[in-house]
């Protein structure tokens, strides 16, 4: 069989490593075989191809050294950063737990839903930078670096294309080759600057008339953190032609620039061109969720489900929404659907167990939770499952079991702030004030975004007569959750105390 045909067939069947091998053999025989070279380029690229449209994580450096932010204190409802507005239409923190950025927990973990914007540098460096939830220093490093390096290391005979010796202007004149080379440089080599050079020359070669090159230019600028340039490239390519990707890229740029409303605007314009496109709908829903407008987010997720009934993100988010809106039986339906779709992991079984329990389907509840415990792949997940089991045992009425569960959660994950807090409450009830205070303090120092340990610490200090520390704690609690009534009440009491002094 003709080896090139063979390689082509392998490429089509997405057996890229075999394809590369065949191409290498052809190239060894004839180093100037452009077709083989092209095919090898493509298959190498395909191996490391990442859909750039997907959300990417925000590095610590970007969160801190943010030079694109327009205002420190944005108007409520116009920023994804900072504390959510007090006039949020979502549920209060008392009902739906929050992530570290003070936003309600999403039903679907994606980059950016957990981190948010840390308050201090120390917090940013400290918070859960584990192998599982690693938060890169910058987005320029992190995943892209790892991917690029991985591909580099696997090559025995040195790099396939020596970037430093490439004659960019020669390749830019040949559109087909240039495009493949660009993707190789961008995805496989992860050499964004070289890719940018090539893209700039190529778009010049076609008299700035090719929308594809403009998108690539925008992608390069985005990767380099030049968001305004990326924005202008995407906009300019949108004049020639419109694809779904363009709107998604633009939305991504605006999210980076912290202009969620502009992003929403472009997504909606995209929907006019491509009605009912699920990617656009999901993007809109995500932005609404980021703005703490959960009702609208769920509305869009529902629309997604109309056209794509297997969208895991939409199902999970709607399920979570129903669960925290006192409709566990509906949430149960959604989670069951996830099981049908093929999701089979600890989180899902834990959620199923919780929904069963709260919807009074007691025969299923505990077995689901135990299954979740079995399936949990790492300590962080195990801690969460133990924590939830602790809640169930509390509801069943067994405080000592709950105590053990929370302690097990802490054993699995030493920085499980919620478990520390609940453990503290149980200790307080048992009359061991010192231990309780220690637990509250640990919880508060691990997760300053939770209001419960602050309030508990304040209440306990108030009981023990330590009014000053009680005051400082209740102040923190009110900072995190200004509408918390008990904190406000305690604050008032303390102020009266101090006034009387």
């Amino acid at each position, binding site marked *: 069989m003709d080896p090139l045909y063979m390689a082509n067939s392998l490429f089509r069947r997405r057996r890229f490593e075999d394809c590369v091998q065949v191409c290498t053999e052809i190239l060894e025989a004839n180093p100037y075989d452009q077709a083989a070279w092209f095919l090898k380029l493509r298959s190498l690229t395909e191996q490391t191809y990442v859909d750039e449209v997907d959300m990417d994580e925000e590095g610590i450096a970007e969160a801190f050294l943010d030079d694109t932010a327009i205002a420190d204190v944005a108007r409520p409802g116009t920023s994804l950063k900072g504390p959510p507005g007090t006039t949020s239409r979502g549920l209060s923190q008392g009902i739906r737990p929050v992530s570290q950025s003070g936003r309600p927990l999403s039903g679907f973990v994606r980059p950016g839903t957990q981190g948010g914007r840390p308050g201090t540098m120390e917090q940013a460096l400290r918070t859960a930078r584990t192998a599982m939830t*690693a938060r890169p220093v910058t987005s320029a490093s992190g995943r892209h670096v790892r991917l690029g390096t991985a591909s580099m290391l696997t090559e025995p005979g040195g790099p396939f294309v020596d970037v430093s010796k490439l004659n960019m202007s020669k390749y830019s004149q040949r559109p087909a080759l240039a495009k493949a080379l660009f993707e190789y440089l961008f995805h496989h080599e992860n050499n964004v600057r070289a890719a940018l050079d090539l893209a700039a020359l190529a778009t010049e070669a076609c008299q700035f008339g090719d929308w594809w090159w403009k998108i690539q230019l925008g992608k390069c600028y985005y990767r380099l953190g030049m968001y305004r340039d990326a924005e202008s490239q995407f906009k300019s390519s949108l004049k020639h032609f419109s694809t779904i990707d363009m709107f998604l890229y633009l939305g991504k740029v605006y999210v980076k620039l912290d202009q969620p409303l502009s992003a929403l605007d472009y997504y909606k314009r995209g929907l006019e061109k491509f009605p009912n496109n699920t990617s656009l709908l999901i993007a809109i829903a995500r932005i609404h969720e980021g703005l703490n407008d959960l009702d609208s987010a769920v509305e869009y997720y529902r629309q997604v489900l109309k056209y794509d009934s297997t969208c895991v993100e939409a199902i999970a988010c709607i399920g979570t929404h129903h669960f925290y809106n006192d409709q566990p039986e509906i949430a149960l339906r959604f989670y069951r659907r996830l099981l049908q779709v093929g999701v089979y992991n600890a989180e899902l079984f834990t959620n199923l167990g919780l929904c069963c329990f709260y919807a009074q389907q*007691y025969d299923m509840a*505990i077995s689901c939770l135990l299954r979740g415990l079995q399936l949990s792949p790492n300590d962080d997940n195990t801690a969460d499952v133990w924590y939830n089991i602790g809640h169930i045992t509390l509801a069943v009425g067994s405080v000592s079991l709950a105590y053990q569960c929370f*302690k097990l959660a*802490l054993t699995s994950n030493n920085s499980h702030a919620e478990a520390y807090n609940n453990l503290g409450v149980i200790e307080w009830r048992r009359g061991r004030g010192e*231990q309780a205070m*220690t637990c509250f303090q640990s919880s508060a120092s691990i997760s300053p975004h939770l209001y419960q340990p602050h309030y508990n610490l304040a209440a306990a200090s108030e009981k023990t007569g330590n009014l000053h520390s009680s005051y400082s704690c209740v102040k923190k609690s009110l900072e995190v959750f200004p509408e918390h009534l008990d904190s406000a009440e305690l604050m008032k009491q303390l102020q009266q105390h101090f006034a009387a002094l």
Partner: protein
Amino acid sequence: MRFCNGAATVTSFPWEPAIPINIASSAAGGDVCAEPFPPFLFVCVFWRREKMSARTHPVSRQRSPDDQENSGISGAGAWLDAHYDPVASLYTFSSCMALEDLNRDGDHKGPSLSFETPLLDLPHGGQRLLHGQPLTPELQPLPWQQARCLRLQELRPYFNLPYPTFSKSLSFPILHIPVSVTLREGNKEVPLSVRSLKYLQLEDDAELQASFLATFRHIPLRRKSVITAMAILKKSHTEDDAVSCLVVASENGDIYVLDPEAFTVLKQFLLPSPAVFLSVTGLHDVDYHISAACRDNCIYTFKSGASTTPRYKIPLASQPCGLQRINKDVVVGCMDDSLASYSVKGRRQWSLRLPASLTCMELLHHRPRSFKAVVVALQNREVRIYKDKFLVNCITVDDVVVGLKFGPFGREDGVLLMVTQGGALLVKILKRSVSFEAKDLTPGPPAAQLDKLNIPKRTRVYVEQMAREKANASTMHSVFQQDLSRLRLQITQAYAKAVTSRLTPLTASPDCSLKIAAQVQGLGPIFRLTVTVQNTSPSKPVTNCYITFRCDEGLYRITRKFIQMPLLVPTVSYNFDTMVQCTDDMGRAEEISVYVVQNHTSTPLITAVLNMPVSETIIVT
């Protein structure tokens, strides 16, 4: 309370002579009857009607900068200070205050003392009473005294109406001693005259009794009574100047409606208890209601008609302090600091708690805006205005207000006169532009509480599940119990494992309770590892402890592998740190266990497990 026991007049009126305000007072005379109320001094403030408008305004208006402000709760914006005399030496209550145009010539010369008339006895109330032809010059106000009715005409005492005497229904135990015994033993109350009571007191002494009888045999029995409340009932027209009847309540528990001309009793009502406040609506010739708040903590309502007994009875929680009628409802203030509104039939419309005890009440009827509200003076020196149950305005006065009167005075339609406990007189004009808004400004349950809770609807799925539960209740229960015991076992096993191998970051053993927390800082390849150890026992220090680590030796290099800890003082947290270098550049990360161990033991006391972050070595190279 200060009393003025001088024979004649209240002095220290710094006003000009021609004052349309009449202050008359009299000292307590020695009357036979022992009144149940303290010797009040009487003040009658009469109102002058103004017809002309050519002159400047007689009431000195003090324009304050906050005139234009909206009427807030502070109350300053709604009122103009017309007059304030802190040394007016008026000792009176609302019932003795009335507003009247004395000369009926519409002439108004500003607030000043007009005349004084000594009264023979302490007055209990004063009312403006119009009788005879409407608008005739001799229409005069009429104060009543305890057993007399005094009518002033030409600004002088004019007519003294003797209180009706009653010989009927009085029994006199003259016939036989057993009668008095039955009287005392029987539960039925028999009204006795003072003389009969005296006689009964003499029952031990037969001689004295005989002489008592001999002395008083020919003098007819008469029971004297005192007036406890007065009100005015319009005869046949509702106009301001229409002829009106006097309604009088007595200590005996009677209410009389008197004829405006002849002062004969037109109608008598019987109450089970003496009335303290009267409130009257309607017209005598058409239909009327009389509400009386009585000393037995009840409000009785009479209707015109043949019946002399009360038609409705409203029991109160406490003694009434004031009674006003707004439209069809009765607003009553009680001694338990409450203000409540009842319908005529006794249904409570609303009730609210006042911040202090109530001293007096007055109806604020602002005719130009047809606004009706209740003015309430409180012991905390506030005068509050309630429209329905909503506080619409609040005035703070320097002293406790004991007398209130609202009505037309001078050229103003709405003037509030206040007499304080110290005897000061305040006159405040209600601004014409003011409109009180009945907003709920009272502290209490927030408005959000009234909102309907967003309880999700009962879904179809829920109903289906409920049906399933009903059908399989016993199996579900047994499965749940089985699962629960399985869960219990699993928890206990896991906990036992964690405790025996000391995996927990907290110890709970009685001899040594420690807490450990470990943090990693830095981006790599060199991290700083901080271990925080705290002795959580309340009093027991911990000694001879060490920190040691366990990790993949090929991956991490720890600078201080063994840290000796000093004596751990209770409740103080200690930080120990060490450097950790990641020697791997493949992006691997593992966990590091931190142990706290004690001398001579093979198992650690506590353990902290640290998930190391991915080292950022690559960008450096």
